């Protein structure tokens, strides 16, 4: 009976894994989710001493991974912007997957923030008594709004499901909503522009942390714009990577090579722009901003494990090289090169977030204080594991029962035609 129900919900014309294998996959990730949920319960009920954070490392694994996940989740708004506003038709193949990825990244980040905050029951204070000067207040407002927009963008994909389609006016509402999608794409872009930027601004405004402090334009430090650029650069790569991953796991061809190429090309161009701006900003910071505050450059890089190499890897190895590979068409055409460059771009953004959260905390500000190191506790890993498991589960169910990749039927048929010619 269950397999019949399952078959009834799976869209026609596509082949999905048999229910047993899918059940196994869901069971595995439910296990990871359960362990993480227990860790979250510990932190909420007992207290945050279950983590290894302390009065120096006030931000730990969770905030670092939050920033990374939201940066990579920028693929949603950027793909939407490119498709609906700049009319890049070939991205129609990945827009549904991008929206689902965005929803997962942002909702996961919000859940982790609720656990990371000492008093989650008072979280609404930020809305009720907002501090207009605080970057964190701006981030909170924008992320909640954008999460709402993402949910609204997810609704049409949901209503397209084969069974839901039959009910009343769902399809009509989906149709009307689809016509207004341009408005949501624009609002999404505006919101994402601000909260990606404010996440960068979080550290750029820290007058007390010369390692992170940057001057900038009006009230926005330069890290505001750098975070937006890096998010836009990493977003499409992340979507390309995830699509390839889903193709590998489901063993089906999901998008055309042309879609891959567009994603890579745009990501490459943005990455080059980001590397340029990042280099300029770093030079200005090392020679002008920090020394003026009594912190010559060597005071940041004289400590053993956080030497100058982090800067070199972030800008050159994980920034310049993938950028060049992605903007160079023949190189980009080779799939392994494309995937490696995309992975490098995402790793570059992750390292940038790591440097701004963990290294800023590690470096002492008082001359007589010392460098401190930090390693997350199992509760921190497990809690984030739960969010990843939640993401995988949502994606798996969406991939199985909703049409995330419209081109899949086309490609499957083309494949069959080809196979029948050979036979």
């Amino acid at each position, binding site marked *: 009976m269950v397999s019949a129900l399952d078959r009834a919900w799976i869209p026609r014309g596509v082949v999905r894994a048999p229910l047993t294998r899918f059940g196994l996959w869901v069971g595995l990730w439910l296990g990871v989710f359960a362990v993480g949920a227990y860790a979250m319960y510990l932190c909420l009920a*007992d*207290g*945050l*001493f279950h983590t290894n*954070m*302390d*009065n*120096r*490392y*006030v*931000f730990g694994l969770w905030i670092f991974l939050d920033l990374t996940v939201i940066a990579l989740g920028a693929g949603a708004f950027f793909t939407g912007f490119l498709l609906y506003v700049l009319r890049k038709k070939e991205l129609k193949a990945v827009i549904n997957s991008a929206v689902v990825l965005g929803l997962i990244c942002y909702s996961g980040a919000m859940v982790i923030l609720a656990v*990371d*905050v*000492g*008093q*989650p029951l*008072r*979280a609404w*204070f*930020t809305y*009720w*008594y*907002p*501090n207009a*000067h*605080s*970057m*964190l*207040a701006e981030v*909170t407002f924008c992320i909640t709004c954008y999460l709402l927009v993402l949910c609204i963008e997810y609704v049409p994909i949901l209503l397209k499901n084969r069974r839901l389609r039959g009910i009343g006016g769902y399809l009509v509402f989906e149709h009307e909503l689809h016509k207004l999608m341009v408005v949501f794409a624009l609002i999404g872009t505006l919101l994402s522009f601000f909260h990606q930027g404010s996440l960068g601004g*979080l550290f750029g*405004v*820290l*007058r*007390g*942390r*010369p390692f992170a402090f940057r001057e900038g334009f009006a009230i926005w430090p330069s890290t505001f714009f750098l975070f937006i650029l890096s998010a836009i650069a990493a977003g499409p790569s992340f979507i390309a990577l995830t699509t390839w991953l889903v193709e590998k796991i489901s063993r089906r061809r999901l998008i055309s090579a042309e879609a891959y190429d567009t994603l890579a090309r745009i990501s490459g161009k943005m990455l080059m722009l980001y590397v340029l701006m990042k280099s300029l900003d770093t030079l200005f910071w090392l020679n002008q901003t920090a020394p*003026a*505050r*009594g912190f*010559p450059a060597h005071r940041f890089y004289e400590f053993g494990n956080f030497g100058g190499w982090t800067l070199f890897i972030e800008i050159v190895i994980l920034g310049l090289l993938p950028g060049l590979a992605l903007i160079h068409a023949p190189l980009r055409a080779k799939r392994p090169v494309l995937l490696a460059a995309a992975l490098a771009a995402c790793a570059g953004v992750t390292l940038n977030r790591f440097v701004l959260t963990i290294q*800023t*905390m590690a470096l002492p*500000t*008082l*001359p*007589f*204080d010392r460098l*401190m190191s930090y390693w997350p506790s199992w509760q921190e890993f497990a809690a984030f594991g739960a969010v990843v498991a939640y993401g995988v589960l949502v994606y798996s169910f969406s991939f199985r029962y909703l049409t995330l990749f419209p081109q899949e039927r086309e490609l499957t048929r083309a494949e069959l035609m080809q196979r029948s010619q050979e036979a």
Partner: protein
Amino acid sequence: MTRRATPGKAARYGMIIDLDRCNGCGACMIACAVENNVPPPDAKATPRTGLNWVRVFRVETATRPAFVPVMCMQCGDETPCVSVCPQNAVDVDPSTGVVGQIPERCLGCRYCMAACPYQARVFNWRDPQWPAGMEQALNPNVSARQRGTVEKCNFCHGRWHAAVEAAANEGKTGSVSYTPACVEACPAQAIEFGDLNDAAFAAKARAAGAFRLLEPLGTGPKVYYRTGRAEVRGAVSGLIEEAKNGQRS
């Protein structure tokens, strides 16, 4: 975001700490903990997760080590923690200049702790516990903070309240003078407390040999340090020109 101050009554309290007198006994840390109902350490507390509103650093110098008490500097200009708190739990009090940390509104995001250059803020990582019965011996002028909130030195604001109450009892208005716990506790009278708006105290604060920690960051700290020993000034203030003659290990 400061409300209108009572006219003509504003004080800007500040401290001068004489590093040559401080001998690192820690009386100020214990007196501060008693005065402000800071719970005793629990089994798993460490120097990095402990609750201390004032911390005495031991700073190695070429000659004798110097002992430097570091507490919240009640920064006056561009207060780093006030501008970053997302829900205004931190606010410079107009009538005293003290940076108020209100645990009832703090939601424990700890962003102010990241912003503070002096790491003078500490976080309640777990529920505060006192030995059974010790609640009767807590200071009535200060309320205990819940788990998950940030706390910091507020120049013993409980004592400012008591002073205001006593002044009101005699019908007096205007800024009051009082002595914080660490000033009263110091065996060497190394800490001086006063109103930076009053010229004499301000002159003493800016006298020769006085300096402030991380002054070039421009946050306007209101705790001044004084020492006659150049190597201590070099090691403690970290200013580039002093650092040359003070050996820094």
